[in-house]
Each structure stands twice: as structure tokens, then as C-alpha cells.
């Protein structure tokens, strides 16, 4: 089933999506909240949908050929978002489970407060680089930044600020002496390679190419940031 989104509203498109578990939507431009809270189905989008693409997603799979805007994958529980393009700010905010793969770059405050719970484990793989505050407040889940465009550092300022769980992996071309970074161990590398294989599969890229370089993990303080912060009054 194919839909032309031209001049269609969010509600009209979301209605089609809920009626059809497999469909393609073309010529998206600015429609917000697409696929919100969908529990099943596989959808392929083309174009430039508006904010909150795949918000509260709970099982469905959405693939986008084009760029996504702000708040993509907001509070996602499960399912998969595959973005063959760039992503705006606040991607994957409060994500509890499921997977998001972005081929290009993403904006600021991505992967903020990701978490994990029981069998749910959120995964965010960014092919390019991220802006400031990547993985801020992180409480669980895995972020992997593949740095396909070979930046010296594939994220901006305050990466992992206030994180108290979860893992942030990233790829560098050169050895880094930054004390915040720790080179990954073989076990972690194996996990990373699995994620790369999946990313490469979705993006139809050569995984070997993406496995070159050096993988680092951002040190997330294991100490409780709140310890010693308060005193009972």
C-alpha cells in the first residue's frame, strides 16, 4: 500500500497507518506525530516529517528516507526507528526500550535520560555525530556513535552530563588521551560489533568499514551524584 502525503494531515496519515500494518508514505512534509504509539506494523516513510516522529512507539517499525526533526522517538518503549538521514534535537528522549538507528548526524540533547528496565533495553546508534548534551541524565541503555564523517570528536559539549547509568560508545580515528574516555574491552567490542552489523544491515552499508578505528567508552561515574549533596533539615 502506498500513500501520497501531499496535503494530508497528521490525523489522516496516522489513520492509514493504524489501518494498514505495512505501508509506504511518500512526500511527507512537516506532518507531526507520525506513527505515535503504534504497537505493530512496518512502515516506510519518504520525505521530511515534522516533530515527534514515532513518539511513544511501542512495537512498530518505522523507516524514514529523509531527515527527521525534533523529538523523534520521544519516550519510546519498544519497536524500531531507522532514519536514513539526519535527526534534529532531543532524539530518543526518555527512551525505555527499542532501537533507533540514524544514518547521519543528530542535534543537541539526544539520548537524554535513556533507560532500561527488565527485558527492555534502549539502543541508539548514530551513524554520524551528535550535538551537545548527548546522553545527558542517562540511566540505562546503550548509545553508539559511529562517527562516519570522521570528526575529531563525534559529540559536542557536556556529553553524558549527570549520567548515572547506561553506556555511551563512540568511534575515533585516532588514539585519545582524554581522561574521560576508556578504550573498550573485547567483550564490549563484541557488543559494539553486533550493533554495527545491525546498523549496516539497516543502512545497507559495509560493516567492515564501520568497524575500523578505535572504540571508546565514555566513563560514566559509578558514584551516586546525589551522595553528599543533601543534608537532612
Amino acid at each position: 500500500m502506498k500513500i501520497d502525503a501531499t496535503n494530508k494531515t497528521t490525523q489522516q496519515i496516522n489513520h492509514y497507518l493504524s489501518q494498514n500494518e505495512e505501508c509506504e508514505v511518500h512526500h511527507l512534509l512537516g506532518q507531526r506525530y507520525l506513527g505515535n504509539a503504534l504497537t505493530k506494523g512496518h512502515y516506510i516513510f519518504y520525505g521530511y516529517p515534522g516533530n515527534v516522529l514515532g513518539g511513544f512507539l511501542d512495537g512498530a517499525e518505522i523507516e524514514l528516507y529523509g531527515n527527521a526533526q525534533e523529538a523523534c522517538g520521544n519516550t519510546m518503549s519498544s519497536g524500531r526507528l531507522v532514519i536514513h538521514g539526519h535527526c534534529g534535537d532531543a532524539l530518543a528522549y526518555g527512551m525505555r526500550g527499542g532501537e533507533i538507528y540514524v544514518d547521519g548526524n543528530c542535534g543537541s540533547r539526544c539520548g537524554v535520560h535513556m533507560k532500561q528496565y527488565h527485558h527492555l533495553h534502549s539502543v541508539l546508534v548514530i551513524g554520524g555525530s551528535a550535538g551537545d548534551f548527548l546522553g545527558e541524565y542517562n540511566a540505562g541503555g546503550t548509545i553508539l556513535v559511529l562517527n562516519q564523517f570522521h570528526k575529531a570528536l563525534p559529540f559536542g559539549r557536556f556529553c553524558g552530563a549527570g549520567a548515572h547509568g547506561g553506556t555511551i560508545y563512540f568511534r575515533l580515528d585516532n588514539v585519545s588521551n582524554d581522561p574521560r574516555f576508556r578504550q573498550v574491552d573485547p567483550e564490549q567490542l563484541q557488543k559494539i560489533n553486533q550493533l554495527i552489523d545491525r546498523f549496516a544491515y539497516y543502512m545497507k552499508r559495509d560493516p567492515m568499514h564501520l568497524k575500523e578505528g578505535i572504540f571508546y567508552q565514555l566513563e560514566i561515574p559509578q558514584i551516586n551524584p546525589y551522595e553528599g549533596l543533601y543534608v537532612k533539615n
Partner: protein
Amino acid sequence: MREGQFKNSSGCAIACIFHSDGHLENGTRIKKAMQLMHDRSNGLGGGFVGYGIYPAHREDYALHLFYDDVTAKEKAECFLEKEFICLKKEEIPTNQCVINKDVPLIWRYFIKEEGNKKEFETKLIQAFFKINQEIQGAYIFSCGKNMGIFKGVGYPEDIADFFQLDTYYASTWIAHGRYPTNTPGWWAGAHPFGMLDFALVHNGEISSYDTNRRYIEPLGYPCCLLTDTEVITYLLSYLNHEKGLTFEECADILAAPLYSEIDKMEKSKRCYYTQLRKNFGSFLITGPFSIILGHEQGIFALNDRLKLRALMIGQKGQSYYLASEESAVRAMQMELDSIYSLEGGKPFIKNREVNHYEKG
């Protein structure tokens, strides 16, 4: 209640088309961008500014005024005619089929520049404050050369139709859709806010407002509207018009780098930024904002330093397309050479490469 009688919070949509080669286009595409971002406005304000729209009066100042009634109009005209040489006056053509609620009288005047430009502009600013503060029911909402602001209460796309923007040709278009939290809708309260060649649109609500306002007011910029847009325009006008600071320097003041970053810079940069922060602390803007300022030569855009608002910049040839959302950029120009998100605290500054506007 009107703007100026209370402090108003508002969220917004902003967009801009800028042709660095000076070529002109009508208001159709900028309207499309605003239409797409309909949900970011709530119908209580929309507006546009075009640069290069009055080629027949390119050397004259175009004053756009709102009047509540004929009395206000008579008073303001009496004042203007006494102070300035008015070359032409006319009612701004509008399509009242689109909006017909609480529409004020909307007039424009072309005023001849006399003597020294700087002195004349000082006089014009005095008239701007005089009319806006003292003549009840009259409000100058645009007063630059060869440019004009069109704004009012309504959704931006309706404002565009109301003012028939498809009949105006500009090399820079900047637009604003407003989401004020409480205003009964006063036409002058819509944005862009303009002063001389500056016209500013803003998205976000700044937290430094009263620090900025209390500082700039005694310097001759009374804040009558109590909006963020107004105060930011004044800060920029003071820094750029009065102090001769470049837009790069203005950005380094309004969205200064953090001390933690400054302390890591090499010496000359460290001194530069420390000095700016030390001396211009009252101009720092905190809280979320993205702004686009239009001026005689081009545009200036800036995001807050913690990057709490999004602003996308697309380029196609010598033209630039800015909007709060990428899809709005694509609505203006689907095929682009490049598109990126403006980083926090890093300005986007583009000037026209030619000194004239060309009808394209």
C-alpha cells in the same frame, strides 16, 4: 490589556529567505513555510518583513502605522508632518476578507531623509518613541528604508494574504508566527519588531528579560511592549548602531561562551571573551531563544548558548533558507545544497554580496 501592560510569554515559529545576490521574490514561499508550521502559532499573531520592497522609494524611510481610530491618525499625522517631509502617504492595501476582526487603520508614509543620516535616524527614533508612547492609539511598527513589516493578529499565513504579500518583492523575507500565552490580540504586539532597518523575530522565552530591560531602558530604549523581541532588538541596536560592534561581537556578548570554555582558550581569545563578559554582562541573554534579525545589509541569526531551540539553515546556491523546522525549510526550497542545524551560541551572519536589490 495590550503588550506593555503585562509581561507576556510566548513560543513561536520563525522562518527566513535570504538571497545574498540581492534578487527579489514575492511573499509566496515564505508564507508556505509559515503555513507548514501552523501548529507553532495560535492565531494570536503573525508577521513578515521584506527588504527591498519599495524600489520606487529606496532612499526614503517607509513608516508603517497602526491607528485605533481617526483621532489617533490625525494626531500622529499632524506630528509627522510637522517633523518630517512626507513624500507620500497611503493606506496599506489589505484584503479584509481574510481577517476582519479588530483590524486597525493601517497606513504608510514615505519620509525624506534630510541632512546627516545618523542625526536623521536619531530624530526618527525619537519620533518612534514619541508616537508609540504618547499618542494614544497610534503605533509605528516599521520605519526602515526600502523595507517594511507587515503584521497583525491572526495566523501568519492569513496575515500574508491579508497584506497581499504576493505583490511585494523582497530579497530578504523574515516571518514570525506567534504563540503568546495571554494576549487579547493587539496588532502592534505581533512580530517582527522593527526599529530603523532592524527587524527581529524570536522563538523562545528568555529568562534574563528584566536584567536586559532594566539595563537598556535608561540608555534611551524604553521597553513599551514588554516582549523579549523588543528588548533583544534594543540590545542589538545599542551594540551595533550605537557602539559599532560587529554582529560577530554582538553574538559573543548575547550568547557568550561559558567561563569553563573561555578559561581553556588561548590567551588573546581568553582576554577578548573575558573582557566582553566582564563589561557586557547585562547584555547576556539566558533561557531558550533563536532569533533572526534582518538589517540593511543582510541577516543575523543566533541560538542561545545551551541550544534550547532549533534553527535549521539550508543553502541553495546563493540563497539561504532558515526556519525553526527542517520541513519548513523544505517547504520553501525542497532541493538544497546543504542543510544544518545552527549550533548554540554560534551566529549565522550573511550579508548581501551586492549593494542593490534585483528583481528576479
